[in-house]
């Protein structure tokens, strides 16, 4: 059974990491989004494996079903459908790679160095005690074997599920619950406001250069008129302006 679980675990990990990598490096942005969905689905399965089915289902519902669809929609709305042939990575991508890899290395080295987190000693701070790093590193092989012994969980503690989540959301986590719901509401309204395009009166937004030129032309005419954005563009600029839309 452990073997099967291990197999599933590594399979899922491979799926998650591979599709995550594809999200990052693939050229077509739609394909990236689809790989992202695969990654999300793998993570949901991961939650099932970790015996958090509620979170897993929520992951499917929210990420796979909603957020990634939202992203696909956004991609299609911005009409950058292909993306093929253009450079998809930033010029200094190697800096990013360096930073990311460095971070991973920095995290992974201590994890491999001290293979077992001090889970057993409750009450101890759970970061790595600096003083006995040498002692731990002296016996790198013995420590994991001793501590990795599976704790015989005789009574099989009741794992918290959806019921307990609901209970604690209504009791001790009421305030975080309210705050996050408020956050969601605000984000919703904010998103609508940001993305809303009023049909009847669309305002042009002038670039700085255009505005300066406009000022100059108005001053040159010697007329003290208030700036009226769309009406007073110098001829020839109105259609070619970079900010002009539809």
């Amino acid at each position: 059974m452990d073997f099967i679980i291990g197999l599933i675990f590594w399979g899922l990990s491979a799926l998650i990491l591979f599709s995550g990598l594809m999200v990052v490096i693939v050229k077509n942005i739609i394909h990236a989004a689809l790989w992202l969905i695969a990654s999300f689905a793998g993570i949901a399965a991961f939650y099932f494996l970790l015996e958090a089915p509620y979170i897993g289902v929520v992951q499917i519902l929210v990420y796979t079903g909603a957020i990634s669809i939202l992203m696909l929609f956004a991609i299609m709305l911005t009409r950058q459908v292909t993306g093929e042939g253009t450079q998809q990575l930033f010029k200094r991508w190697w800096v990013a790679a360096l930073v990311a890899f460095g971070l991973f290395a920095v995290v992974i080295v201590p994890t491999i160095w001290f293979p077992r987190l001090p889970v057993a000693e409750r009450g101890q701070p759970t970061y790595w005690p600096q003083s006995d790093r040498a002692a731990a590193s002296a016996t790198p092989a013995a420590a994991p074997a001793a501590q990795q012994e599976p704790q015989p969980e005789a009574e099989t503690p009741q794992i918290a599920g959806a019921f307990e989540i609901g209970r604690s959301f209504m009791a001790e986590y009421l305030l975080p619950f309210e705050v996050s719901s408020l956050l969601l509401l605000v984000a919703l309204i904010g998103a609508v406001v940001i993305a809303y395009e009023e049909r009847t009166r669309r305002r042009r937004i002038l670039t700085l250069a255009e505005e300066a030129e406009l000022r100059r032309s108005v001053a040159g005419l010697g007329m003290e008129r208030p700036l009226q954005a769309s009406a007073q563009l110098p001829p020839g600029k109105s259609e070619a302006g970079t900010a002009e839309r539809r």
Partner: protein
Amino acid sequence: MDFFALAWLIPLLPLGAFVFITFFSPLYRSRIISGSVAIVAMLIAVVLAWGILFQAASAGFGAGSESHAAPAEAAHGEGTVAEGAEGEGEHGGVHFEGFGGAYSQSIAWAATGTTTFNVGYLIDAPVALMLAMVTLAGFCIHLFSMGYMAHDEYPAGHERQSRFFSFIALFTASMLGMVLADNLLLFFICWELMGLCSYLLIGFWYFKPSAYRAARKAFITTRIGDVFMMLGLFYLYTQAGSLTFGTAEGQIFNPALLERLHNQTTFFGMSAATAISLLIFMGTVGKSAQFPLHVWLPDAMEGPTPVSALIHAATMVAAGVFLVARTYPIFIESETALTVVAAVGAFTAIFAALIAVAQFDIKRILAYSTLSQLGFMVAALGIGGWVAGLFHLLTHAFFKALLFLGSGSVIHGMEAAVGHDPNKAQDIRNMGGLRRFMGVTWLTYMIGYLALAGVPFFSGFFSKDEIIADAFGRGDTLGYVVYGTLSVASLLTAFYMTRQIMVVFYGPFRGFQPRPVDPQQDYSEAVPVETPAHDPAHSPAVTSASHGAHDSTAKTYTTHATTAAHGATAHDTHGGHGDAHGHHEAHEPHESPWQMTVPLIILALFAFGAGYANIPEVAGIEFPGQHWLSHFLQQEAAEFNILVAGIATLLSLAGIGLGYAMYRGAFARATDLDPLEARMPGLFRILNNKFYIDELYAATIGRFTNWFGRGLSFFDRNVVDGTVNGVGVGSLLLAKINFIIDDYVLNQGADNLAEGTAITGDGLRQTTTGKIQDYGALIFAGVLLIALIYLYAF
């Protein structure tokens, strides 16, 4: 039926009505539906509240209380068991025996970390009484509003009655919630809600500048008190760790805690109890309009009359007194605080009574009378007459609601004669002889008047007498001072009420030639009617013509900044009203519809009979139900002092006689002088202008603010700007010198330096690429660095 278990419905019913009306009035923009919803909700609340009262009176409060906080029960403890454990209140000769039994239920409301706030309700004897009073008065006022607001359609075509009913429903709901609250936090929330509602309702006719000014004034003035009260609550919370009423461990009336508050000394050498009590009392001063902050209450007359009744009788001002009554165990720990309370109350009582003598607006007289009566109650609480204060609160609520609704009825009737102009319809000099036109109103108003004047066998007599007897029976200086003050105030009360009655209901009717509006006292200032191109400087002829043209015009408020000649156009002016009343030709005042008279009759019964709840024994004669209230409140019954009662009766009768003698033949015409003004013009002017308190505030606080602002402006313009300018000029000078040195001495070096700077800047500029990802990479590089340092550098 167990009414206690249903008590939570009482505030929720009007609240539900509020929600219903608010959300559904856009659909059914109908006065009948929204009003009926509110009235039915109030009716059920009345049934429940009186059920609670009867259950409490007959069966007591059961075996203490249960508190069932769902998850946080253990944290909260055993709920409120207040079984008369309040034996300690023996400071300063004040005797108070706790609130008696109680019934409370609470559920966990908000868990914030370690603390859990509970929300629940608590019923004990004063709460049961208040519930009965508030629901009944509130119901009567709701019903009355159905008739009174029937023609309020300003601006034209907008029936705003739905809004009105939703507001008063919310008002009543918050008052009921406040009464039922089992902790001071909920209490304060409802308290503030009431402040909001008073703002909304006083400014209900917000298109009148005076109305929105009054609303703003009420809101801000009470807010001053509320800030202090909130400070008091904070202080109390830091001391008690809880705001729940009750004597158990961890609740605010816990004897050990009160003892600690009594002994602990804080700022200015006050004890903590004194500080908390005075801070809380500031809330009362604001809400109940006691002396320094009383200015908002008379202005609150700008609201519709039912609102005035609601504010003055059932809700707002009663809330302040109820606050002191509710937190009384803290007050009695501090003699200083009680003395302050008594002094403020007594001073307000006589001060407001004096002002009321010289007012002409029928509602203003009642408003100052309310101030004065509130002073009575507060003074009663201050001298230790807890029962007397509550008793007077109850009786006063009934007869003052009656008087206000009666005055509303009078105004409603008057509007048929003089038009919808509050300056005319509310001026008592324009009334007279209304007894002939409005029989029911007259009769009920007389009952309210006799109760307020303290004539024996009416309710006001018993409660006022108990206050005075308590003050007299105290036997120390404070007691005698309060006794004297209140006696004079009750004499004045009888006097000014008699004056009002004589002028309003007797004598000839003067409404057909109303007084020209004194521009000084024009409360209703300019309001254009719905004609868009209305000339603000219109002539009466234009006004009448425009009204004639608009048959559907509803209530119209116009500026009549002119003259007696305008009287001739009065008939035209209220053409819109005539439309609503079916074009009757004889514009005489008329009796109000049944929606308005029925509440008057109900309230008149209580205004007469409520006093018998605490009837004392006179000369050894036993009455049935004697001292019922005292027993219900589980306090010692006050002794009856035949001497005090006799003196009080004599004073009342003297006031009535004086008023009758002075105003019997006064005001043959509406333009006549007041007899008192004829005799003592100087004093009358002072009183008529309310001791110039408003002007005083304007001249001191207002002017101080103004001056302060100007001073700041002056400082900014001269000192700050001067400094800046000086620095600028100095810089210029220095620059000149610098230029010389630079040009001839440092030129070469500076050029090099500048070039170097430019090159460096250009180099550094490359790092500010404006690309978000560069910044992100830098941030995470920093994280990486920190992690490296953390892991390997130590």
